[in-house]
């Protein structure tokens, strides 16, 4: 639920409740005031009648005025005197209809007779007035409420614009691409603060990220010299004189370990370089040519593993680094060979906007995790960086790489154009 909606809802409900309560209070109070006034009028009338009786020693004529009726009724001598107000009906002779009325019923002594006097006044006018006042008040309040909602809807949207602008930027923020968050111009203090905080956070994150990358870069480079020393010492040791077979095996293991460490370092450096977009030999790469060359290079291994190779090449030229194109294909093909079984097959389909490498292999599907650094299956002999490098290269050039598994075949597809 959006903030504005939630705010509107709370606003509306509160306004409605307040309106209802004030409406009721308003109605009751006005009603009370009018009844008071009517009662006062009735009392005045009563006084007049009593005065008339005192002056003329007879009852005035039961008269019907425009909005007032007086009626007399002879009571028994024993009846008690009483006086009270009552809501009754009033017959309007002019309109010939009954209207709500207010009556004062009182007793009067004239000579030896006790009379009950009923003075009735029409309540219609008062009620009408109350209704009109109530309607006007309601109308005005509804109008106010409506305008409030409209203001909220449109003004709030405008007011929140800087917020959404910042939000958009934060969503688009990409650490790898080193995107920046720009300072939006706004007069609202809160948004200003949010903006500067976002900008500062992005700066700090980028700084940290850069440091981390620099660390990887430096660490990998610094490792190369000691590795070179170990390697050269082994080479020297090997020349030093006769060695036993056992020593030979040990030395070979050391060589292999150095080899792996070197490759690992180089892969890490390559990843950092791709991330920093430091590889600059961008050119139009003819994939058909590169694949043909790669297949020639892989020929020996394919023959040894008894793998059959099917290639369907269509013209495909992509603007990218020649070096990275080479690595991309090397890794894709290398994986297809490495995770294959003897007498398996590899199919390479090249179209003008995608390359697809399908190979037979072990019967389990890879997951997205395989694209993470250093993630490898239990059976994998690699370092777990091959797919990470593929992914990184694809990210750099906005290619999309997908993996699918069907009928024991693994298929990697790189879409060059999105």
């Amino acid at each position, binding site marked *: 639920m959006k903030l504005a909606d939630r705010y509107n809802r709370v606003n509306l409900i509160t306004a409605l409740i307040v309106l209802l309560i004030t409406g009721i209070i308003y109605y009751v109070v006005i009603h009370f005031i009018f009844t008071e006034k009517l009662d006062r009028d009735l009392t005045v009338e009563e006084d007049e009648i009593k005065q008339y009786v005192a002056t003329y020693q007879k009852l005035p004529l039961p008269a019907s005025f425009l909005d007032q009726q007086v009626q007399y009724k002879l009571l028994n001598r024993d009846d008690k005197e009483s006086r009270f107000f009552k809501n009754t009906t009033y017959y309007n002779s002019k309109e010939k209809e009954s209207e709500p009325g207010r009556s004062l019923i009182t007793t009067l002594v004239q000579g030896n007779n006790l009379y009950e006097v009923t003075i009735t006044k029409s309540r219609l006018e008062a009620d009408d007035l109350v209704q009109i006042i109530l309607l006007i008040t309601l109308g005005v309040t509804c109008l106010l409420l409506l305008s409030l909602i409209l203001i909220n809807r449109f003004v709030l949207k405008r007011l929140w614009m800087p917020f959404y602008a910042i939000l958009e930027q934060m969503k688009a923020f990409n650490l790898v691409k080193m995107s920046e968050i720009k300072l939006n111009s706004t007069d609202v203090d809160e948004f200003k603060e949010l903006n500067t905080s976002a900008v500062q956070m992005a700066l700090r994150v980028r700084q940290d990220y850069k440091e981390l990358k620099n660390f990887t870069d430096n660490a990998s480079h610094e490792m190369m010299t000691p590795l*070179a020393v170990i390697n*050269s010492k082994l080479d020297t040791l090997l020349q030093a004189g006769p*060695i036993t077979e056992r020593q030979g095996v040990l030395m*070979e293991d050391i060589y292999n370990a150095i080899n792996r460490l070197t490759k690992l370092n180089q892969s890490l450096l390559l990843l950092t370089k791709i991330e920093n977009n430091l590889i600059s030999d961008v050119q139009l790469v003819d994939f058909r040519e590169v694949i043909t060359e790669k297949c020639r290079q892989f020929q*020996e291994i394919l023959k040894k593993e008894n793998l059959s190779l099917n290639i369907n090449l269509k013209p495909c030229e992509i603007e990218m680094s020649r070096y990275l194109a080479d690595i991309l294909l090397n890794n894709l093909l290398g994986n297809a060979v490495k995770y294959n079984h003897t007498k398996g097959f590899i199919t390479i389909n090249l179209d003008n906007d995608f390359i697809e490498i399908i190979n037979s292999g072990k019967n389990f599907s890879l997951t997205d995790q395989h694209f993470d650094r250093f993630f490898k299956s239990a059976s994998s002999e690699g370092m777990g960086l091959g797919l990470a490098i593929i992914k990184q290269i694809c990210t750099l050039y906005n290619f999309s790489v997908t993996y699918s598994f069907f009928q024991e075949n693994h298929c990697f597809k790189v879409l060059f154009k999105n």
Partner: protein
Amino acid sequence: MKILIVEDELSLLDSMLTYFTEVGNICESASTYLAASEKINLYSYDCILLDLGLPDGEGLNLLKELKKLKKNDGVLIISARHSLDDKLSGLDLGADDYLVKPFHLSELKARVAAIVRRKKFDGNNVITFNEISVDITKMETSVKGQIITLTKKEYDLLIYFLSNKGKVVTKNAIAEHLWGDEMDISDDFDFIYTHIKNLRKKIIEAGASDYLQSVYGIGYKFGNV
């Protein structure tokens, strides 16, 4: 040949010196920019092995100095940085080759030998070892004057062995030399074995002695037995 090794990592320098020191080679070393600069001003070398990261100066500047002195010394850059830009700027400044740390000493020697051969080229570029001779320009191998046909890999292998006569060359080094980066696909060295077997067979069949020795499964040694 006369070689200058410029390297600040002393133990590495020591290994390189040991490997290159043999009959007919004069090896000198410098571990700082200043010492190296002094040496290249005073003497001429067939090949200079230059480490780029020196403590007191940028190795690339030595190349500029060489250029200023109009010397024709061969230069092989050794760098810890696998950087295309470094490589290109080094080669632009007149370096002959670029090798990334860590490396096999046999690879270094093969490359230095290639540089020296190129620099000394006088129309007659032939490596001779007893009855075997290889004409680099024509890419022809002959045994006792009789030309034998080698594949590209066998030819590369022979040159590599000839550059490292009398040294034990490991299978890792050979694999890296022949296949480069593709080799990480397969860690077993059966490929090498096949090529070496074929090369050896061809040379022996042409009437040469067997100069190739296997060294306890770790590598091979080519030289007089």
